[in-house]
Each structure stands twice: as structure tokens, then as C-alpha cells.
């Protein structure tokens, strides 16, 4: 069973985000910087799960924060910034993968880029994970790494809870199938 010790806070709880976002939209750079720094740890982990490459994750974090600062007006009113930020990162990662604007010479999955060694058993699992589309990769990462509950996943992915449950199950089954193959 999951160790839910990491899930000590909610990803969808707005907190002071609407207030900071309003101040940032009015030109308060301090509020904007506070907002962008607030979720940087989560954003780094999400971007690393999306790219499976530390260098590309760093670039994705940078681009996501810049894009978020420029499009702060599209942040849903009264909501937490983190789900919006995660969706933005996934969107940018998908766009980069489609347009081929990744780092030159970067392979779809390079175990060396992970920055950690892999055992013989871990490698096919990571390869199967890397073969998933960015959206599914994000969903499984949020589920298995961040231990986010299904209702919160539904809020982040903007879908219904049963759909999320079904999708996570299918992703797991797909990884198992590809790992076995």
C-alpha cells in the first residue's frame, strides 16, 4: 500500500493563491515571485516525470514559470495555482515533443539523463513509462509519486473521478503489458 506520508497537503486548496494572483495581475512583482516560488518543488518533480531528463526538466520548469507569469489572467478565479501550473507544464511538454524542439540529440528515453542508475528490472519499467504519452505519464506520476487522491486528480486533469480511476488502471495495465513484452 502507498505510504501517504508525502500527501500531507492538498494540491487543489487555493490558500492565498487567488489573493496573490490578483496582486500579481495588478503589477506586484513581489506577489508574482512569491506565487512562482510557492510550488517550485512540485513543479520540478512534475517536469522531471514529464521529460525523464534533468536538463530538459530544468528548461521545462523555466518555460512553464515564464509562461505562467505572462498568462496569469487565465488562472481560474479562486482556485489553486498548482493544478493550472501542472496542466501548463504538460501542455508545454506535449508541444515540445510534437514540434521536436527538445534538446538536439536527445533521445526519447535516455537512462543516463535520469541521473541515477537503473537495475535490470527497473529499466524495462522506465522504458514502458517513457513510451506513454505526456498526459498519461503525468497522471501516473501524480498518482504513484505524489500520492494525489482521485478527486484531486480529477480536478487537476479536469475529468470525472471514475474516468480518472479507469485511466490510471489502464495505464498500469499498459505498463505491465509492455514490460512483460
Amino acid at each position: 500500500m502507498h505510504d501517504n506520508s508525502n500527501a500531507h497537503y492538498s494540491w487543489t486548496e487555493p490558500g492565498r493563491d487567488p489573493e496573490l494572483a490578483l496582486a500579481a495581475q495588478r503589477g506586484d512583482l513581489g506577489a508574482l515571485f512569491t506565487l512562482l516560488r510557492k510550488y517550485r518543488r512540485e513543479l520540478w518533480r512534475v517536469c522531471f516525470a514529464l521529460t525523464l531528463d534533468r536538463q530538459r526538466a530544468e528548461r521545462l520548469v523555466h518555460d512553464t514559470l515564464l509562461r505562467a507569469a505572462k498568462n496569469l489572467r487565465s488562472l481560474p478565479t479562486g482556485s489553486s495555482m498548482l493544478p493550472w501550473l501542472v496542466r501548463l507544464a504538460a501542455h508545454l511538454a506535449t508541444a515540445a515533443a510534437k514540434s521536436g524542439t527538445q534538446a538536439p540529440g536527445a533521445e526519447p528515453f535516455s537512462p543516463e539523463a535520469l541521473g541515477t542508475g537503473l537495475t535490470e528490472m527497473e529499466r524495462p519499467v522506465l522504458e514502458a513509462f517513457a513510451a506513454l504519452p505526456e498526459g498519461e505519464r503525468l497522471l501516473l506520476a501524480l498518482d504513484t509519486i505524489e500520492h494525489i487522491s482521485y478527486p484531486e486528480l480529477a480536478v487537476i486533469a479536469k475529468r470525472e473521478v471514475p474516468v480518472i480511476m479507469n485511466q490510471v488502471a489502464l495505464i498500469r495495465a499498459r505498463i505491465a503489458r509492455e514490460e512483460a513484452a
Partner: protein
Amino acid sequence: MRHVTAQQLSAFLDGALSGVSRELVTRHLAACADCRERHALWHIYDEVLQRVLSWEPDEHTMEQASARVELALTAERRGLALPEFTSVLNPVTAAGPSSPSASGMFPTLPPLTPLHGAMHRPVAVAPPVPSVPATPPASVNIHITPSANSYPLDPPEFAPPPAPPAPYMAPVAPPAPAPPQWYAPHPPPAGAAPWYPPPAPPAGATPWYPPPAPPAGAAQWYAPPPPAGYTPPISPHEDLRAHGVPHASRWASTPVPPKQSHWGRALLIGAAVLGVLLLLSTFLPDVIRIRVPEGRDASPTVELVHRDAPTLAPEQQQRLAERTSSEPPLVPYRALPADSAAAQSTPAEVPQVEHSDSALEPPAVVAAPPKPAVTAKAHAPARIRPRVSPDPQSEDEGGTAAGVEHSTTFVPVSVKTEVRLSSSQPSSQASSPPAPAADTAGDPSLPLLCGEVVDESGAPIEGARVQVMVPALTIRTDKRGRFCVALPAGERTFLVDAAGFQAVTRGVELSGATFETHVTLTAAR
């Protein structure tokens, strides 16, 4: 045996099941080796992903990356050129063997270190193989062989169940010769208190299933597993055809409704709603007249008037046509005095709603200045004209009891709302954009480092790269050889290099608003 579905297993892994659903999956996994192995594999996948992907840089690197974003946003706010992306994970390396970074002058970023506890496990060394109990309990069938992998196949919850307390081991084996068949419940999980001992089966129950209901107040109730070959009874409300029972329609006590698609149901509902609306539209009135008589005790009366109703008197039709004012009347207009017609057609009576900036202040209703008289417009859109200040001068002469009661006429033909927004502040302030609450554009803590890069002859070098070490960012000179970047105040070191030139390193003490520097590059040998 029906295996657990992927959805059940996934939800079970995530701890999203509870109550009966969780109990069912737990029981099935205890009995089915295939599903247990699948569950263990999925658990291993989660462990692998968690170990490998739970990475985040250390605090120093993360701080540098945040500072890089903030400087880029500050530069954009000030209208400066955006700095190039420079990775803080890799230290900046300058070209050429005489590079200062190569000689160790520039600080090297600390190596990446994992943060989470799961990441601290050694990678190459496999974790110890889990110990498998030599004699698993007889009630749980375990056939998992520990592999050479570094993860146990059985997650903790599927380790052999803990041995129950000694007094409760007795139900595992048939306790007494009578009754001959007795299905012992599962041993309770650790910490289950109170453990309700199963009641004695009824005499002669062979086999004895389903279990009796738990007594009132029993905190934990563990039902015994079904005996082999037991099939649950078919509910009379179920579709018996699903159970393969022939001629089920005669057996089912409840008729099975035919399945209907959602689209068909939505289409039927939509058609019904449309029909009701069409039916109601014929009864909608053309005019809703509310008469407000004077006096405290008098109550207003509401009158629904159908324009083509035969009961409408000619005078009423006349007044109706005058008040609606937009559509041609059913009877010819009566000649009205000029001032009366102007009073009817001018929008001076229309209340203008002013919205104040304060959310707590209610909108004020003010009277708009009178406009020149307009003659009756045949094709003007009809408007709702609530008469908030009836003027006896403008009241038509044919009005019922003019001066005695005031009537308000609503014409539900079309509605045009005019809302004029105005601010309580002076117009010059209202038209200007809101001032930033705290803009750092003039912040002395972020002074500008500007400079010019030239060659030995004094010609500007375009595209020269200026790399600031902390915070890590890179900018390039423009065609005039100039660069400008906002940096935190304090000592800053930057490296200037260009193709065909030797790199130069400068250290500056940034303070005040702007720091100007001049860099001359010498050609590379």
C-alpha cells in the same frame, strides 16, 4: 473464478477502496495466486517509479533557477532584452583553453543530490531479499517465489497474515465433532479489537452459508468465506437471462425494462420540452400591466393583456399601442399633443443605473438629462419602460384614472438594457491604468548592469555573450555592442566572450540604479 479487474486492483493499490469493496479484493487476492502476483508486480512498478522519478534539485539549484526566472520577468518589465536560458545544473563553461571557468575561477554548482527517503537507497546494491515464513498459515495459499530482483514480490499487506491470538486459533480447525461442517472466518487483522468470535452454526447446517448477520454493536465482523461450489442466490430483481436461465422472462418477478441509449432518452426529453414550450407560447400575454393605485391600503393589480384578444376595448387598444410605442398599433394612432408625444418617446424617464467602484455601495439611480423630442419610431426596438416618476403632464389623457393610479406596462417583446458605468473617482484617474502596487522597476535592490563590448579598434561587437555567474544568466550584446541586465545588488562576476576573441572576466560591485562598464576584447591568437 472471476478475477479482480484492473480498475479494482489499481484502486486497491492506491488505497481508494474501503468497506466491502476492499474486503472483497483482499479476500480474492488471498485466494487467487494470479491476481496476487499481478498485484505484487504493479506494486513493484509503483516502487520503481517512485524511486527513480522522485527527484528534485537541491535548494541552492532551485533558488538559482527561481532567481533566473525572476530576473527574466524583471528584464521584461523594464523593457530590456530577455536573458538567454542558462542551465544551473551544469556550470557555465567558456570556450577556449584559457577560460576562467576552466581554471576554476567560477564557482562550480554543487552536485545534484536526491531528497526523498526512497532516493537514498543504494542503486546498484539490491535490497535484501525478504524473508519468507517457513510455514505459512494453512488458510492462505502463498506460491510466490522471491526472485533475484531487488523488490519483494509481496507487498507488505500480502505478507502472510499475522497469527491471531491464541484463543482464536481454534476456529481455524474444526472445533468439535458437531456440527460436522464449520467454515471458520479469516483471522482478524492486527489491531482489530474487539474480535467478535463467530457464533455457533445452527444445528445441522451443512454447509452453513451465508453467515448470519452480526449482532448489534459488534465493531468488527468477519464473514466466513463461501464454501466451494457455493453460488449466490439470484435476486428476483435481476435479469435472469444474464444467468443463462432459459425462459427467464416468465420467471423474473420484475419485468426487465428494455435498454435505452442515453441519446434516445435525451432526444425524447428534448422533444417533450419543446412541445411544452410551444404549447405554452400560445398562452403568453402580450402585455403585463401592473396597476399601482395610490393609497397605502390599495394593492397593485396585475393584468395580462393579449393584444389580439377580442375583449379588448378600443380605448384599451389605443392606450396599449401608445405605450408599447415600437410596433404599429392595432388601431390608428390618436393625435396627441406634441409635448405629450415627446414625453412618451424620450428616454428621460428611463432610469440610468450608475455602478460605483465600491462593492459595498449600492448602485445609484439617477435621472438622465432630457434629450430632444423624438417622434414615434415605427421600427425602433421595444423597451421596458418602468415609470419611476410619473409626470402628470406626460400621462396620456385617455389613461384610466390619470392622477389617481399609476400604471406600469411591461411589453415582453424584446429587452434592451442600457447600463452606463461611471466611477466615483475623477475621470482622469479612472481612465488611467491602475498603478502597480509594488513594482520593482525602480527597485534599487535590482540595479542595472549595462555596458559596451568593443574590440581593440573600438568597434562594437555584436552578439558577444555576457554570462553572469550568480544568478546564472546569459545575455548578448546588440548591434551597438551594448547590453543591459537587471541583477541583484552586490558583487557580481561576469564573463564576456565572443567568437574570435579571448574571454574576459569582470567583477563589479553593483549598487545604485545603473552600473556602466566598458569591455574591450582582444582577438584570439
